[in-house]
């Protein structure tokens, strides 16, 4: 436990030592949500909300509800990718000198969780300046799950790809998945959409934003998806620590 705490503290201290990074984790989500809620025109659009069918909803809240999980996914994905790129060598040395791999894993995933939570909190707070979701807590949960899912995918990308390929993946992935494939403005989702990481979290987010209830099956789907991806990332990272 103390090894986990020490490693996590070291990671947090490294974050604190780079105020630019902390500032970006706060500024970038705020900038994106504010930018869109400012420039998108005031009009009503038909939106296919999973729990309620077609609803006439303002374009600003629609875009805000879509951008918030996407922002968390972008931050989580990139944080996961670089966490793995920068920590891999150091962590292998920690294992050599006697640190428990499990403690390192908890600490690294804890750090990823911190970055995702911070970005999610800022994104939802800024979104709430324009539109407060009907159910705030489930909306926050959807945003966090979106960030964590992409964070775990970023960890996997960091293990198998170089940083250039990883950044490409994290640049195009959440955009194509969340903004295009899962968009409730679309008349028909592509066949691959239900299998993509953003599927359940966007459904959760739209249910929470515009209806009084969230489908439990959707919530379960999102959590299972996250659990599976996180388990694979955990196993892959663990294997890397033991094999070097």
């Amino acid at each position, binding site marked *: 436990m103390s090894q986990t705490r020490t490693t996590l503290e070291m990671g947090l201290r490294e974050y604190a030592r780079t105020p630019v*990074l902390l500032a*970006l984790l706060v500024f970038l989500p705020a900038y994106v949500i504010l930018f869109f809620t400012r420039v998108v025109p005031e009009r009503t659009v038909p939106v296919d909300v999973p729990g309620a069918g077609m609803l006439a909803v303002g374009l600003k809240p629609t875009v805000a509800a879509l951008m918030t999980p996407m922002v968390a996914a972008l931050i989580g994905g990139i944080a996961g990718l670089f966490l793995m790129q920068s920590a891999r060598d150091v962590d292998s040395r920690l294992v050599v000198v006697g640190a428990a791999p499990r403690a390192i894993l908890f600490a690294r995933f804890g750090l990823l969780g911190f970055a995702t939570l911070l970005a999610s909190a800022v994104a939802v707070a800024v979104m709430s300046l324009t539109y407060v979701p009907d159910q705030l807590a489930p909306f926050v949960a959807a945003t966090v799950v979106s960030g964590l899912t992409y964070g775990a995918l970023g960890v996997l990308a960091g293990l198998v790809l170089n940083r250039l390929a990883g950044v490409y993946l994290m640049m195009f992935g959440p955009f194509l998945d969340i903004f295009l494939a899962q968009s409730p403005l679309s008349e028909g989702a592509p066949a691959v959409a239900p299998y993509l990481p953003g599927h359940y979290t966007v459904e959760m987010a739209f249910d929470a934003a515009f209806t009084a209830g969230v489908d439990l099956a959707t919530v379960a789907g999102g959590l299972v998806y996250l659990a599976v991806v996180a388990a694979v990332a955990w196993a892959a990272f663990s294997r890397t620590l033991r094999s070097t």
Partner: protein
Amino acid sequence: MMSTAVRLRVGLSATLREFLREPLNVALLVVLPPVVITSYGSMMGAFPRLHSMDAAPGTLGALNGTLFVATFLPGVIGLFQVISARSADERLAVCGFQRPVMFTSRLLAVVAASVLTAAVSLAVLATRTDVADPAVGFTLLAFVGVLYGLVGMLVGAVLPRELEGSLVLIFLADVDELMSSGLFRTDSVLVELLPMHYPHELFQSAVGGETLATGTVVASLGYAAALFALALGVYTLVAGEGGVLG
């Protein structure tokens, strides 16, 4: 003493060799355009034709995907060109290389990546829709690639590490792409400040066979010139010093 031309050649060849040493990098430049353009086109094809769209959603999606990929692949390369080579560049400066020369050699590598990506992207786009003026289309795609390469180099010169630089570039790129996607139409002047605003209009005209608007061409060139001056100035001032915000 080496002449400037020799230094440029040496710098460019070293940069290209470093890039080519990882075959995955080259594969990405060739594989990503078809994946992104096809995905973007088919996913946007499911959208209804909104009144903000100037073309059929599927066509607009393919066009957006083409610009997206042709722009941001060189952008990320520009970012890593500067960040990963910071200490090496500092040593080269100590050995007598002038920073503007190093900047130019790195920019030439970005130009090479932009040309390759533009060619592949345009070829993929041509399989999905008619491109009325391929020569102008290619030139514009290479142009936006260099434009975002400069953005990447500027971000890389200002920010100290790859994580921060990647975050900024990705957020800027995705916002820029979303605003020029045709899903939203806005009169906000904020949108005109985004790098892809004017080139997007020009590229759409080139694909549709329309005459390029002179004002938009001038605005694009002016934006690129200002960005070049800014990126060169910042790189010359701070490269090797840990970044402005470091």
